[in-house]
């Protein structure tokens, strides 16, 4: 049976390739039953860069603090494939099957919004490293994050555009398939108008769109002096290239979603000068824990385990883990209710990205940095306090 042999061969190849991916990386050192921490990250799909970077950060932080309450911590990763339904499924699986005491992730707002109700119902705390949409924690008791939120980020971007870049006519291109993009776009528009600027064009696109020529044609005709792109890295890079091809030469500004190496790899020379609001830059990392983390990151890089520059996604991944461990230590237990109270009373915790305080609303209060692409690297422009 010629054909069956071929199919069998394919299955064998697939299994051989998949085994190392599925194997769990965490090995406990201390005695006692391991404490399971579930991690939901998009390691494949449209926003895989965020998930892979955050996962590296979480693993490095785990190396720094592998135990708590005298027991080893075991990380269990579930890939949500950049999909909201998969994120909810992953949360159920981690809670019911793996008996996770807490969940770190997902990376983006839409996927986190679908995982949160599952964690909330089970009374298991969920900490997203980087989901910035305000709705993620609104009205929830068990949802937390270690990043700033979009009303602040949008405000910072609008002020930078109006006051520093002296822009007066802004055009906005929003990916309407993402809660993050829709929210951030609105906060930017509100603040830019409040400052006295004019919004000359608002265009829409969808995640996975590749052709933006129609939107950019209309935007060019509206003669803006800045283009705000509150979207993810692949769309940002393609928009930047197509804008330059159409002769739209205005400065471009984006949100924290832009900080992935793909922005530069795909965008090439079109993203030179491309600026965005972000969570972190190594230049602003001065604390002991930050230095320790950066040293570990450099080691991993020399070993070839990571290939990219350190970004906010690595760092916030690490911070979500460190904040959780700090809360477990203070609570003295992994029970959901006590752990929740400990998390909600996190005050001035020294994380890699800076001092983290979590309010009763589950949100962290943090400063933002502005970065821009220069010579194919992300360089530091300025820090803006809340």
């Amino acid at each position: 049976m010629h054909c069956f042999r071929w199919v069998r061969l394919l299955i064998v190849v697939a299994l051989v390739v998949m085994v190392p991916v599925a194997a769990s990386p965490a090995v406990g050192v201390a005695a006692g039953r391991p404490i399971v921490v579930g991690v939901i990250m998009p390691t494949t799909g449209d926003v895989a860069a965020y998930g892979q970077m955050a996962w590296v950060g979480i693993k490095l932080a785990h190396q720094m603090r592998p135990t708590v309450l005298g027991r080893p911590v075991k990380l269990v990763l579930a890939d949500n494939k950049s999909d909201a339904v998969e994120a909810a499924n992953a949360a159920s699986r981690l809670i019911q099957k793996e008996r996770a005491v807490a969940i770190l992730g997902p990376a983006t707002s839409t996927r986190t919004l679908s995982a949160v109700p599952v964690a909330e119902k089970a009374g298991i705390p969920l900490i997203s490293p980087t989901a910035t949409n305000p709705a993620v924690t609104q009205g929830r008791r068990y949802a937390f994050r270690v990043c700033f939120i979009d009303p602040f980020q949008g405000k910072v971007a609008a002020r930078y555009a109006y006051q520093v870049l002296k822009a007066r006519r802004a055009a906005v291109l929003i990916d309407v398939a993402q809660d993050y993009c829709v929210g951030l776009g609105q906060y930017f528009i509100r603040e830019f108008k409040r400052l006295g600027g004019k919004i000359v064009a608002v265009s829409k696109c969808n995640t996975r769109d590749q052709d933006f020529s129609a939107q950019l044609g209309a935007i060019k005709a509206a003669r803006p002096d800045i283009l705000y792109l509150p979207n993810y890295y692949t769309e940002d890079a393609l928009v930047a290239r197509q804008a330059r091809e159409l002769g739209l030469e205005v400065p471009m500004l984006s949100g924290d979603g832009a900080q992935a190496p793909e922005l530069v790899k795909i965008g090439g020379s079109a993203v030179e000068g491309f600026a965005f609001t972000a969570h972190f830059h190594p230049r602003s990392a001065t604390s002991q824990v930050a230095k320790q983390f950066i040293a570990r990151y450099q080691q991993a890089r020399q070993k070839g385990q990571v290939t990219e520059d350190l970004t906010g996604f690595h760092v916030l991944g690490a911070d979500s883990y460190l904040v959780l461990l700090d809360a477990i230590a203070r609570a003295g237990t992994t029970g959901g209710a006590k752990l929740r109270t400990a998390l909600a009373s996190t005050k001035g915790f020294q994380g890699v990205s800076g001092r983290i305080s979590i309010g009763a609303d589950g949100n962290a209060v943090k400063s933002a940095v502005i970065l821009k692409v220069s010579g194919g690297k992300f360089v530091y422009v300025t820090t803006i306090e809340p």
Partner: protein
Amino acid sequence: MTGPEFLQQLINGLTLGSLYALIAIGYTMVYGILRLINFAHGDVLMAGCYIAWYGVVMFHLPWWAALAGAMALAALLGVLIDQGAYRPLRQAPRISALITAIGISFLLENLGLVVFGGRPKAFVRPEVFNHIYQWGELRVLSLSVWVPVITAVILAGLVFVIYRTRTGMAMRAVSRDMSTVQLMGIDTNRVVALTFALGSALAAAGGVFWAMKYPQINPLMGVLPGLKAFVAAVLGGIGNVVGAMLGGMILGLAEILLVALLPEMAGYRDALAFVLLIAILLLRPTGIIGEELPE
């Protein structure tokens, strides 16, 4: 909307349309001969892009050599898929083959995720295609000028193969009646394999030019162009290669003009393609220039 802006949008529409057309031609050819909607077409396209990417990045091949390599290996992949998945179902009802095609599509996508990883890779656009022509406000990328030319050349070549060669005659005969053709002493399996090889090579070619225009590739990149090409093929009259070209152009223009003229509706751009599909199936199931189906 001003005159120059409208002209620019027309150019944008034709650019997108010619890429749809290029992909739709392979789609429609396989259907025309085998009466099989090969849903894996978009994923063969993706595989072709990765082959070309490895050719350029790892082996430092010039773009045309990478393109040729991608077409050759994609053709091989097409033959393998036919041998492994479709051939055992040759006598089965048509729906079984259709479902198998969807299965192959998922298999290729997930294999792509495992082998190539989920993060997009940047595709290189060769210098010849990276030049921008400029007339006043209007801008045209040289790639956008070349794609219709390449599509026309491929179309001419395909028409030649199908209507002027013995293999082409065998293909046309297979499309009419496979069992009778077999009785005439023609090796139908060879003809079908050749059809898949040709269709897959065309998918790879379409994919490589798509990736040059939108320079990122990922394992799921074939899904949307594949579906759009399918719509374009049905629009033009599935099975008809000239119709596929026409359908692609109409779809590209319709999408761009929707976004340009009704910015509020921009989010429904992909939906528009499927509304067009439903409309054409209701009003004129054979497509704009499709022939009446036998039976």
